[in-house]
């Protein structure tokens, strides 16, 4: 078993529990001993657009210090938001002066020494597990199910923190393929779902979600998968009444199913896939 420090983030302990459960099941089957980091805090969710944003890196860096405290060199996230903020902060403190300022502020923690790598589930599956090994370990195949792979924005933007080529990503499609599915790359797969406008202007989100789902259905999809809890919520809960009745699942749920996890009732339409 290969030890892997894991930062869940708040959503994985709340609305995105099925994502975490499925992913952890699959990772165990792939030979990973996943260790949740102790006393983690919220990643900050949305990175600050302010020029002077040092304070917004305190939370993410505190999490990286916990990883350091475990004696680990890298940390896994499943959530697109957490990936973005942790990765940015790991990058931010590569400048010595910034690192010194953060460490001076965090006077109740051990100094952060840097050098922690932040990996996303998708990059782990691609770069370390590999699509072939993934395919060879699958216990239940998606059997050609047409899966629309929805990236949203945070996984791919900005370019320097993207999990894949921000213009032509393929990692999620390759993972779906490895699970036996038929990926459906649809035109709106990289469009923003409307994100936090879901709080104050859900009408805008509903409009966007309608377009995204029609695009996916138009490309022949039976199912939409995503890795972002906010995208999943918006696509599933903010859809317009006339939108196609496409199910929207976390990639982790599909992974878990493919690796033989117990099959929750909400995994329609995978039930018919095997």
């Amino acid at each position, binding site marked *: 078993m290969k030890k892997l420090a894991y930062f869940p983030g708040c959503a994985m302990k*709340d609305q995105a529990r099925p994502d975490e459960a499925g992913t952890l099941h699959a990772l165990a089957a792939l030979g990973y001993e996943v260790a949740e980091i102790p006393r983690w*805090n*919220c990643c900050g969710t949305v990175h600050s657009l302010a020029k002077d944003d040092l304070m917004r890196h305190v939370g993410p860096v505190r999490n990286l210090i916990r990883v350091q405290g475990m004696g680990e060199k890298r940390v896994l996230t499943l959530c697109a938001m957490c990936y973005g903020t942790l990765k940015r902060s790991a990058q931010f403190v590569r400048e010595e002066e910034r690192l010194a300022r953060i460490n001076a502020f965090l006077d109740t923690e051990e100094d952060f020494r840097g050098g922690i790598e932040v990996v996303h589930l998708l990059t782990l599956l691609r770069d370390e597990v590999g699509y072939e090994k993934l395919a060879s370990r699958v216990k239940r195949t998606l059997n050609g199910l047409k899966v629309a792979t929805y990236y949203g924005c945070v996984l791919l933007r900005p370019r320097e923190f993207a999990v894949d080529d921000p213009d032509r990503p393929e990692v999620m499609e390759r993972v779906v393929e490895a699970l036996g599915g038929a990926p459906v790359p649809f035109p709106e797969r990289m469009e923003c779902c409307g994100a936090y406008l879901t709080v104050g202007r859900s009408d805008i989100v509903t409009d966007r979600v309608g377009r995204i789902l029609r695009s996916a259905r138009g490309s022949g999809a039976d199912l939409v998968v995503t890795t972002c809890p906010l995208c999943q919520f918006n696509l599933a809960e903010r859809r317009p009444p006339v939108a196609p009745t496409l199910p929207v699942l976390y990639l982790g749920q599909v992974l878990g199913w493919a690796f033989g996890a117990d099959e929750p009732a909400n995994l329609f339409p995978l039930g018919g896939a095997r």
Partner: protein
Amino acid sequence: MNEVTVFIMGKGYHVPEGLTIMKAMEYAGYRLGRGCGCRGGYCGACATVYRLRGDYRLYADLACQTPVQDGMYIAQIPFTPAERPPYQLADLQPRGETLLSLFPELARCVACNTCTKACPQKLEVMDAVQAALRGDIPQVAELTFDCVSCGLCTMRCPAEISHHHVWQLARRLNGAYLTPRALHVQKRVQEVAAGVFKADLDALLSLGKDALVAAYKAREIES
């Protein structure tokens, strides 16, 4: 008698060593109408901040529990304004969304941990904020069980969270919805109502004083 010099709201006083901040203030002539309650560290009324000469840190503590030190700069915070929106517990769900919708400022936490440093009860305040953010109400209730609502974390928080009101709501939700019902208490209440203990009680009430004292002394005591 050894004396130390303390500065209460900027003015210097020589006070005996070993006094608490509260006693030192009274020794210096203050009459405490606010900022003073149980004097036993339970009520949280005597929130106080201080600095020590040559130390950049701002310390926070309860005046009734903290001995004076030489060169201490002291100010009391008798009251912390904090917003508590009205709610009816019976209308609420024991979920993270409940905390966030009533106290949306929770989401402004940047995990700076200033709250934890300010807590005179040595609670892991930031961990409780984080637990609230991920909807772990039992964890919030557990971490804040010893909160005395002194308001010091709330006063220091850059995200302007009203911590003690959030904690109170979390403990209420936990108690009302998430902890197991105390069935033995319900059973006992029914027994009392049904008069199961009436005969024993009447017998006690009919005893004279001497017999009552003797019965008291002879009572069974759990060891």
